[in-house]
């Protein structure tokens, strides 16, 4: 008795002696008894008292035990109310009828106290287990609802971040499950200012929120940089660095990124960890696979990150197919994976390229059958087309970009009061880094500007002699003198003039620095022996190497270099 708490038990029997006996037995066991004399009464008492266990005589007037049991089970709903039939019936058919009516067990007359006690105990255990199960089920439902609600909010946020995309262009087809972001797949596409399209399909490791969380910085970086014209390698590096910083070890993003130039019919593609992409050649149905030659995004530090891309010259109506491993790893009921061989077979059997996209989706779905859901399936097709047919932006940008260049000039002068405290280089470099194609050359540009500015300031404005630096003692004298003069200086200037011009293949940056100094006899400078050139030492040799030529003008107080670059976009 000590392990069963006091229960409320309904005893329904029309025979007074039987009911008396049963009531006494049950009460003796320490339970609370409520009684009924027939089936109808039993239902009323059940509704009013909500007993834990019901003992029902099978044959009763008004409504028999079978009818009462059905009604009581109906009233109990989800809750488990054990119904035990009291019966002196012993034929199989009657006992089966008891169970069919929703009875959980039966107890034969004459009553055996020990057996009744055991049955009450066992059914109480079952009842408690059932109620625990219901509570946990409700908790699971609640948790699940909350999860879905959170996902809806998160998806909403993500959709807003990804909103500016151009996935609706006429030459783009894609398939993503509605909550793809939560199985780690992300697809972003945007137009560059030059009218080419940049697309990234990513597949984060893992599922759920941890997989989704990386999609945010990825998408916002992508959409922040693409419309400003940054090159694919700049964007890949930026995303890689961000993910590497944010994501825990073991979570990273397999991705393929593409820059599709519709005007030049050119594809630039980088694959880090996704299955081979296919470039489908319209003319002969040939496929060029683009293998993953890189580690996924978010694995390597930016220093070790490799951004070299593959290039393809495409024809009108050539198609690029990119997928996450969901297609390759889709399983049929036997557990076999779809695999690349089946994918290639789909391509070789195809006769109308326009149907390839649907062929792939249907092929995978048929293979999988009804068993598993195709939630992880992400597929993207991009067809090479004339800019005018892609979207209005591509047309406009392409028309503009096709015959115009971006050209500007910037002048900058450092005044004498500021030589001591102001270093103009970070500011200038910041401006240059806003020019998309120059970003890749930041350290080169810094070196060039730093060397030229230092020369202009120290030898031009401060009139320091670089010969001083030839001995160790002279070296410290040099810097002592520099300190002295920079504190005393009241006039002079350094003017920095930077002009920028793009062309079809890249661009050219002209840097001209003029100082207020006396210049030097640059005619005597010997071009074949750079180190012997005393005026500015090794620095100029380095600049010469980076820019091709360094020209001096005026009395030697003006220096000019051209830095030209080739852009592979």
């Amino acid at each position, binding site marked *: 008795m000590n392990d069963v708490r006091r229960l409320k038990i309904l005893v329904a029997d029309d*025979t007074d002696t039987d009911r008396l006996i049963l009531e006494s037995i049950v009460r003796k066991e320490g339970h609370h008894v409520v009684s009924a004399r027939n089936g109808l009464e039993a239902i009323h008492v059940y509704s009013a008292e909500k007993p834990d266990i019901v003992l029902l005589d099978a044959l009763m007037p008004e409504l028999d035990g079978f009818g009462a049991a059905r009604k009581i089970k109906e009233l109990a709903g989800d809750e488990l109310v054990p119904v035990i039939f009291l019966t*002196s019936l012993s034929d199989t058919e009657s006992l089966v009828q008891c169970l069919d009516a929703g009875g959980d067990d039966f107890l034969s007359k004459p009553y055996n106290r020990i057996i009744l006690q055991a049955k009450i105990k066992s059914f109480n255990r079952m009842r408690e287990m059932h109620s625990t199960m219901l509570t946990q089920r409700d908790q699971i439902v609640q948790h699940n609802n909350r999860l879905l609600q959170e996902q809806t909010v998160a998806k909403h946020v993500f959709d807003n971040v990804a909103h500016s995309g151009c996935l609706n262009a006429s030459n783009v087809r894609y398939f993503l499950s509605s909550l793809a972001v939560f199985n780690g797949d992300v697809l972003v596409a945007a137009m560059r200012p030059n009218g080419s399209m940049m697309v990234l399909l990513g597949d984060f490791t893992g599922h759920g929120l941890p997989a989704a969380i990386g999609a945010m910085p990825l998408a916002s970086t992508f959409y922040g940089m693409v419309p400003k014209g940054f090159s694919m390698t700049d964007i890949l590096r930026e995303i890689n660095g961000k993910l590497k910083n944010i994501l825990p070890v073991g979570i990273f993003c397999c991705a393929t990124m593409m820059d599709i130039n519709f005007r030049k019919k050119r594809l630039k593609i980088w694959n880090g960890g996704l299955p081979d992409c296919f470039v489908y050649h319209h003319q002969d149905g040939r496929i060029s696979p683009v293998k993953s030659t890189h580690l996924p995004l978010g694995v390597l530090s930016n220093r070790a990150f490799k951004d070299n891309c593959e290039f393809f010259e495409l024809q009108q109506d050539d198609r690029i197919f990119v997928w996450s491993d969901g297609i390759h790893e889709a399983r049929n009921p036997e557990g076999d994976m779809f695999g690349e061989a089946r994918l290639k077979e789909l391509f070789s059997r195809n006769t109308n390229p326009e149907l390839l996209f649907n062929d792939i989706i249907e092929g995978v779905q048929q293979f999988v059958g009804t068993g598993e859901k195709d939630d992880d399936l992400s597929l993207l097709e991009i067809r090479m087309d004339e800019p005018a047919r892609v979207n209005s932006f591509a047309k406009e940008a392409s028309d503009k970009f096709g015959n115009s260049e971006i050209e500007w000039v910037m002048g900058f002068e450092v005044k004498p009061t500021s030589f001591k405290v102001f270093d103009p280089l970070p500011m200038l470099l910041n401006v240059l880094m806003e020019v998309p194609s120059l970003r890749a050359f930041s350290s080169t540009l810094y070196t060039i500007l730093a060397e030229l500015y230092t020369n202009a300031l120290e030898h031009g404005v401060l009139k320091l002699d670089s010969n001083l630096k030839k001995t160790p003692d002279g070296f410290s004298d040099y810097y002592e003198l520099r300190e002295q003069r920079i504190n005393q200086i009241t006039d002079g200037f350094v003017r920095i003039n930077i002009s920028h011009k793009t062309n079809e293949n890249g661009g050219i940056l002209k840097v001209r620095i003029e100082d207020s100094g006396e210049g030097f006899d640059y005619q005597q400078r010997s071009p074949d022996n750079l180190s012997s050139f005393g005026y500015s030492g090794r620095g100029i040799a380095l600049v010469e190497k980076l820019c091709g030529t360094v020209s001096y003008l005026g009395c030697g107080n003006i220096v000019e270099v051209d830095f030209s670059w080739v852009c592979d976009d």
Partner: protein
Amino acid sequence: MEHLDYETLNTLKQVMEDDFALLIDTFVQDSTDRISSLSELIKGTDGDLIRRAAHSFKGSSSNIGAPTLAALCSALEKKAFENKLNDLAADLDLIEKEFAEVLTQLRAL
């Protein structure tokens, strides 16, 4: 077969304690009512009603520890079930006599 099953009765006594006398009185009253109800029923032709009445009587007799009485009720129940409704008066007569015997012995407890 014994008229009374003393083991069952002893258990009942333990279980019912002070209510044991009430239980016996109830049984006597209940059984008397059943017998008079049966004697009316067997004059008629409703086999199912007779069967149900005999079934209930069987149950209460077996619960109180009167196995012979329960066995006689069971025989009547069986006949009614098979719709052999002739000669049921003889069966009821046997039941009445057995009940009288049970009553005597219960009073003697």
